[in-house]
């Protein structure tokens, strides 16, 4: 139903674009239509970066420049065919997208804004100062525009050309964002660590998003240079970067957002030109208040309105009931006789605090292991070391026959090590089903091109993933929550969703960080059953837990940490009698409630290096 409405819409737009030049012969209106198309193109890619992947960029004018100057130089200096030069502009901008992404991977927040501003300014200065090549403010004249049937493009052909490009971009980006890449971008946006934990390469996703935005922005630049037959350094300004960003934010992050934003802002720009002050104030007011009145942009506001007016339209498609129970296809166990995971001499220190002090551990395939210890004993740090989030200072970890020290968390996740988090790291704005499908990211073989072009293989993979996600939800008793927003569920269910997401990665080893925290007694009892069911699937479990009855009830093997050191391990019954364990726990009965906090560096990791 939805798909058909969309196709109809696309057809209507296509017809409108095809007919527009016949409806009006006014060159100015055609030029405005052309500009809407160009701005849409730039914004559509930028939306992938800003709206979906959550990376701020205030320097996209630089990428616009790369595209514009590539076509300008190639056609005027080297005599390239304009069509080829246009394609080259996209490629070149994509390469620069990688370039700007590299430093951007290391920094976040205001520093990221600074890096992108810096990039924009460096490009602006290079094209204005390096006059032998870029001709500065004088500009490059005589940029060739593509021709069709021997005739150079006129106003009408430009509208058609940009219309075709815009429609193609819309279809591709829509297809991309609805599939596994779109979910991966959103995952990176909401919780980078969690995205890594399900095998999504955060770096790769960010680079990809930067490249997509760079290519469309570069093509926009090429269009402007070719249509106008001229480009100069005055076109490349900080304000242009802001304008692109404004289109995206004003329009909203839905795939229709950039289109709405481009239409409204281009029309404002064109028809308020006679009152420049009004125009400036409008921009200012839009920037200041649009986000206030419409936090999700124009598209979000309209969508909300239509949901309220036509509730029937907003109803999600029903999930087909799962056919058959879920089955694990985990990575192959390489040497069944050896421990699944063996760590030797793990050591980690933050200044004088040593949350992990020469810890050895072995996890046996198919067992449930528990990691216990007083607050601040270093349990979470150990989990973070095993899952690759924190690199150990010393020591080795062998998981299923592979040395995993130094591997990125997403690589470790791909080897079959899944985890949940003490402080929930759900993708709160996505539905429960989508959360689980993010977990299935690595299980889907869909390639980037296939997803971009919406090939039948990609659609098939999507259907399979949805079906499997439904199975997993069913397995955990969440079948009826599939379409709820994950963040809106009660706390206990959110923990369950995170478990479902981790299971979806088809792990061999599952690390659970305080899975019962915040659960009521009834939920805790259910959890025991769930963990047992998980073990029965053939998944080895390591859990951190404070509920001793839970630990003692299901563990095959318990490891006790105190002050970063392993003080005991063995079967639950042995641990309960161990005098050192009892002493450690009595010591933890500290009257000062803050003591736990000051001793809990394990809960902190330096953010800048690991997932910046």
């Amino acid at each position, binding site marked *: 139903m939805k798909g058909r409405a969309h196709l109809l819409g696309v057809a209507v737009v296509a017809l409108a674009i095809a007919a527009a030049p016949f409806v009006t012969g006014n060159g100015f209106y055609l030029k405005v239509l052309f500009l809407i198309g160009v701005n849409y193109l730039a914004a559509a890619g930028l939306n992938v970066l800003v709206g979906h992947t959550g990376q701020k960029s205030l320097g996209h004018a630089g990428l616009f420049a790369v595209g514009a100057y590539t076509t300008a130089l190639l056609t005027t200096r080297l005599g390239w065919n304009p069509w080829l030069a246009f394609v080259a502009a996209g490629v070149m901008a994509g390469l620069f997208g990688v370039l700007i992404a590299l430093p951007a991977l290391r920094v976040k927040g205001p520093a990221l804004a600074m890096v992108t501003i810096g990039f924009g300014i460096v490009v602006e200065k290079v094209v204005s100062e390096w006059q032998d090549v870029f001709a500065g403010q004088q500009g490059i004249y005589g940029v060739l525009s593509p021709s069709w049937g021997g005739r150079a493009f006129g106003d009408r052909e430009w509208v058609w050309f940009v219309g075709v490009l815009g429609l193609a971009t819309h279809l591709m980006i829509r297809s991309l964002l609805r599939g596994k890449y779109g979910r991966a971008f959103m995952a990176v946006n909401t919780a980078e660590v969690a995205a890594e934990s399900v095998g999504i390469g955060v770096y790769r996703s960010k680079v990809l998003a930067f490249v997509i935005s760079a290519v469309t922005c570069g093509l926009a630049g090429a269009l402007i240079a070719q249509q106008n037959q001229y480009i100069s350094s005055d076109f490349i300004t900080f304000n242009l970067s802001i304008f692109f960003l404004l289109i995206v934010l004003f329009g909203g992050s839905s795939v229709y957002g950039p289109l709405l934003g481009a239409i409204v802002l281009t029309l404002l720009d064109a028809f308020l030109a006679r009152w*420049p002050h009004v125009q400036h104030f409008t921009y200012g007011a839009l920037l200041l208040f649009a986000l206030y009145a419409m936090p999700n942009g124009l598209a979000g506001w309209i969508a909300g309105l239509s949901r309220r007016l036509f509730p029937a339209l907003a109803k999600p498609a029903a999930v087909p009931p799962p056919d058959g129970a879920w089955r694990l296809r985990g990575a192959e166990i390489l040497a069944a006789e050896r421990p699944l995971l063996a760590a030797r001499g793990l050591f980690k220190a933050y200044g004088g605090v040593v949350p992990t002090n020469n810890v050895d551990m072995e996890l046996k395939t198919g067992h449930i292991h528990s990691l216990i210890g007083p607050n601040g004993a270093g349990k979470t740090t150990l989990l973070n070391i095993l899952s690759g989030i924190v690199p150990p200072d010393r020591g080795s970890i062998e998981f299923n026959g592979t040395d995993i020290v130094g591997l990125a968390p997403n690589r470790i996740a791909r080897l079959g090590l899944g985890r949940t988090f003490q402080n929930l790291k759900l993708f709160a704005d996505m539905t429960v089903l989508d959360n689980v499908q993010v977990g299935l990211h690595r299980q889907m073989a869909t390639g980037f091109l296939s997803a971009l072009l919406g090939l039948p293989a990609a659609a098939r993979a999507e259907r399979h993933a949805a079906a499997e996600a439904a199975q997993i939800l069913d397995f955990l008793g969440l079948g009826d929550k599939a379409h709820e927003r994950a963040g809106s569920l009660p706390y206990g269910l959110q923990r369950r969703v995170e478990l479902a997401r981790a299971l979806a990665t088809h792990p061999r080893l599952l690390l659970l960080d305080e899975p019962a925290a915040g659960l009521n007694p009834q939920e805790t009892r259910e959890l025991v059953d769930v963990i047992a069911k998980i073990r029965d699937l053939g998944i080895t479990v390591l859990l951190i837990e404070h509920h001793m009855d839970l630990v003692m009830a299901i563990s095959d093997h318990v490891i006790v940490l105190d002050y970063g050191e392993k003080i005991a391990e063995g079967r639950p019954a042995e641990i309960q009698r161990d005098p050192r364990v009892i002493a450690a726990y009595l010591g933890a009965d500290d009257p000062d409630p803050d003591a736990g906090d000051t001793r809990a560096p394990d809960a902190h990791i330096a953010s800048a290096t690991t997932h910046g």
Partner: protein
Amino acid sequence: MSAFSNPKSVAVALAVSLCGLVSAVHAQDIKIGYNADQSASGTAELGTAGRWAFEAAIEDLNKAGGILGRKVVGIIRDDLGAPPKSIQIMNELIDNEKVDAVVGSANSGNALAWLHIPQQKKVPVMVSIATATEITRRYAKEPQNYLFRVSMVDREQVALLVAYAVKASKGQKIAILADSTGYGQGGARDATEVLALHNVKPVLVEKYGPKDTDMTSQLTKIREAGADTVIIYGIADGSGHVLRSMEKIDYLPTTLGTWGNLSSLLPRIAGSKLAEHLILAASTTEDSNAKAKALGERVRKNFPTLTTFACSAQTYDSVMLLAAAMKLANSTDGEKVAAALEQVSGVQGVIKTYDKPFSKTDHEGLGVADFYLARWKGSSVVRYQDAITRSITPADLKR
């Protein structure tokens, strides 16, 4: 969402409906567009000075019964100093407002960005402020060049400045210091070429950013290169800071500057004593004649901080030349008006009486013969004369 997947058609509908709104002016009126920065950058001052003179000219034309008995309407647009905006406005003026001629562009860069539009659509343009030499030359070889100008062309003022510099410098040690804008760099190129006609190579060509305030490092290099004469290519605020930096490093060579230094920003930034040091090329000042004085007062009524009167005078004269051409052609057809512009004669302007200012090959209304050297004295600009200026002959004005 699906209901909103076809907004592009909404845009077309919107654009079409707006079309009805805009074309409410009488078809009989003669429309002249004015396209220049009036608010967004340093050149806004020049554009605003021109804008009020543009309105004054149109008022005068209508008072005298219009052109060919038709009322003249001025359509004023602000290009915000940005080429993309300037292009868009040019499209709007020509395609949507259907103007008969355009006056304008304060920034050379903006003019260079849209030159092809009026040329292709056959609408005559009078460039009244921007000075880049290329503006009137790019289409000089076409059957009809639609770009005309009444302004201080870079090449023409350079001819005068270089003629003086070559005579003033001992041992031909001349340096060029230009701002990094299109204006400054175009001028620096012109200056280098004209110097070559005198068989002189500049000892050094340096540049500074249009917003820089400290040029001591460039000047130190120029001093080390042994220059005793410096040609500054930039507008008033830049030149003012150059003069201040010269004082800072205690280096005061013979210094020549452009028409842009007619702005009173120069003495205000550099102080009246330093400002006197600069010899500049000038076309007209408010006290040149009674007409100029009257125009200055009219513009000042709307724009009290007017500092660049030359822009007002040039814009006023541009409109008058267009009107004369339309009368001569007895038509507003772009092709005929452009051809008539090459024939008009005896047009009374503020700067001078234009006797056949344009020809097939020369679209510059003002030339080196209309320029003189001047300098600031207190709060006004006076003609500058010394033994060297008196010795300059027409043969020295190579260009």
